[in-house]
């Protein structure tokens, strides 16, 4: 694209100007000659500046993209490279824990190495207050306006906005949207519809929780509130005392032998389902997809307490030293990630809902997405939309009392 923007004859003009300055330089010596040199230089300089502005990046930019794994379209960024006329993507796979993400930006590669970082959203508070990300100018993203999910689910003033915005400004581009609950093996448990199943003594020793106080903790709080076993104000933002109550409950269950284990990775959770090591497990939906593909009948529950909604956000790393060309390439990448092909690929590979164009793109390009895949993408998209319709609570990734959360969770694990 950049090459096409530059008319063929412009370079010739430039070299003519260049030639002109050479001639002027040859006349150096006389003051008139010198003034002409300065004039020629100015003209030449303006010409260069103009040509730079018109043609965009002369050299190809490589956008450094730190990603927790979900955002990798199988290594294929060719469509982005084609669309931007040569810009490439260097994807760096990082761990998904807040410590890994925050410390890799604060210390590790730092803000000077990475241009974009794609993680589970809701982390704006620590990221912004540590000066690690900058607001996104959505006007530079043509696909933003086309993404109706953003308008629908992530409106300013709603808890969804907290996944991409902070202090009224938008910081993250929502690349993935999803709702969490839990999974179970129906042949062993029959249909289940409440988070209470995770704590049901019937399945003692056959339950696993996620090692994450913002998901498992919040689900427990939702259940305790709905079943009136504890007085909890906002399950998404517990006070230290409320969190203590939740953890006391969990410790009691742990001591009874309710939990087989507390998992901390995708691979572990999938294994627990596929090997039928547990019957009820607090997990993410893609794990159920994998289990089903391996022939294990697992169901992702629709709990009456509601789903836990979340979104992945791609943030622009705050780097005042970044060149405008690189920033442009980064914005192009953000826009690309809101596009149809990327959305369809990620939905297919990872099992999450991405953007509204994804199912349509998949259907319209049977060469890239065979009918079965397109159907699957549409089904996943519809499934997640249904979850949003059924309603739920937005996950709170950085609660006000997050220190208390962490200390209490440590107490749960050490018990």
């Amino acid at each position, binding site marked *: 694209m950049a090459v096409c923007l530059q008319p063929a004859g412009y370079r010739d003009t430039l070299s003519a100007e260049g030639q002109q300055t050479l001639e002027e330089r040859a006349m150096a010596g006389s003051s008139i000659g010198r003034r002409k040199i300065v004039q020629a230089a100015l003209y030449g300089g303006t010409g260069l500046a103009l040509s730079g502005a018109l043609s965009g990046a002369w050299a190809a930019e490589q956008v450094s993209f730190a990603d927790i794994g979900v955002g990798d379209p199988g290594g294929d960024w060719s469509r982005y490279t084609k669309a931007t006329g040569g810009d490439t993507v260097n994807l760096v796979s990082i761990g998904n*824990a*807040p*410590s890994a993400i*925050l*410390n890799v930006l604060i210390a590790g590669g730092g803000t000077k190495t990475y241009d974009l970082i794609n993680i589970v959203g809701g982390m704006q508070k*620590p990221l912004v*207050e*540590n000066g690690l990300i900058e607001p996104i100018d959505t006007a530079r993203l043509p696909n933003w306006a086309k993404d109706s999910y953003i308008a629908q689910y992530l409106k300013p003033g709603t808890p969804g906005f907290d996944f991409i915005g902070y202090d009224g400004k938008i910081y993250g581009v929502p690349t993935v949207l999803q709702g969490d609950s839990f999974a179970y093996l129906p042949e062993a448990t029959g249909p289940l519809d409440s988070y209470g199943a995770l704590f049901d003594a019937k399945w003692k*020793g056959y339950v696993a*929780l996620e*090692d994450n106080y913002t998901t498992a903790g919040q689900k427990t709080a939702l259940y305790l509130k709905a079943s009136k076993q504890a007085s909890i104000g906002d399950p998404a933002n517990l006070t230290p005392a409320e969190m203590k109550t939740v953890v006391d409950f969990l410790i009691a269950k*742990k001591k009874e032998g309710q*939990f*087989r*284990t*507390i998992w*901390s*990775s995708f*691979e*572990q959770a999938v*294994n627990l389902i596929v*090997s*039928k*090591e547990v019957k009820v497990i607090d997990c993410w939906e893609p794990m159920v997809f994998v289990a089903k593909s391996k022939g294990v009948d697992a169901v992702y529950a629709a709990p009456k307490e509601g789903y836990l909604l979340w979104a992945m956000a791609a943030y622009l790393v705050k780097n005042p030293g970044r060149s405008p060309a690189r920033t442009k390439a980064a914005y192009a990448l953000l826009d690309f990630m809101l596009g149809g092909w990327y959305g369809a690929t990620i939905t297919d590979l990872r099992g999450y809902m991405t953007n509204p164009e994804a199912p349509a793109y998949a259907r319209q390009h049977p060469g890239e997405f065979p009918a079965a895949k397109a159907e699957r993408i549409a089904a996943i998209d519809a499934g997640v939309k249904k979850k949003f319709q059924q309603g739920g609570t937005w996950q709170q990734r950085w609660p006000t009392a*997050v*220190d208390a*959360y*962490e*200390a209490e*969770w*440590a*107490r*749960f*694990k*050490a*018990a």
Partner: protein
Amino acid sequence: MSRAHERVAVWTRHGLLALPIAFVAVFLVAPLLFSIAIGFWQRVGFRVQPAFRLDAYAEFFGSVRLLVLERGLIVAAEATAIGLLLAYPVAYFLVFRVTRSAARVVLALFTLPFLVNYIIRTFSWSWLLSRTGPVNKALATTGLTHAPVDWLLYSDFAVLLGLVTSTMPFMIFPIYLALMGLDRRLLEASWTLGASPARSFLRVTLPLSLSGVFAALVFGFTGAFGDSAVPIILGGPGYQLMGNAITSTLDVLNYPLSAAMSSVVVAVMLLLLLCWYLAFDLQSFLGKMLRWRF
């Protein structure tokens, strides 16, 4: 002329020998001191401010996180002891009962599994030991059990198994080297003097191999204590060692607490090293080296 020459030679040599010390001093000691200092600093929002407060240490010692330290020390000691009980006989066997080339092959075989990523290997164990995994299936077919054995996985047994299998091979090699370097004439002298094989072993072989045993203990203990993967993959609900606990505090950017916990770990390890220094005369460890006078 030759005196100056000599002095230059000595200084170059000292400079060269000081290289690793300088390397460690710059890239390790300096960051370490900095991180120890942070353990005393104060948290202000997300930042840390220089101060001298014992809040972080108080929080660590007054909380359940201390249990993690205790458990770590105990399980690391157990794993190291088991590892040593396995590694020493293996090394002994390879040195005294097996040809050199066969020993080299076996040693290579012990290191091969480490080419497979550690996470993958540990995760493999969690599948092997699961309720529906091959081990339980084998036990069921042989009729030894009627139901899947639960304690094979997500238990202290699994953690010990994971730690021992990951550190024991590291322990074999230094003991092997120490035994290989043993002067056989000393053993022969012992036999000639009428000592039984067991006595010869206890009085001659074992003391002379202490340098290797020391290295093996260091490898084993630090490897087991510092393991972050085995506890969360093979351990019971919430099982964690110090590495996991520190990562958890970093999740909320609690730098002083994580620094305090790291400092405690380093202090404990240094204490153990000090005990060794005191209990064992460096002479027996460094052996003939201490006769070096140049």
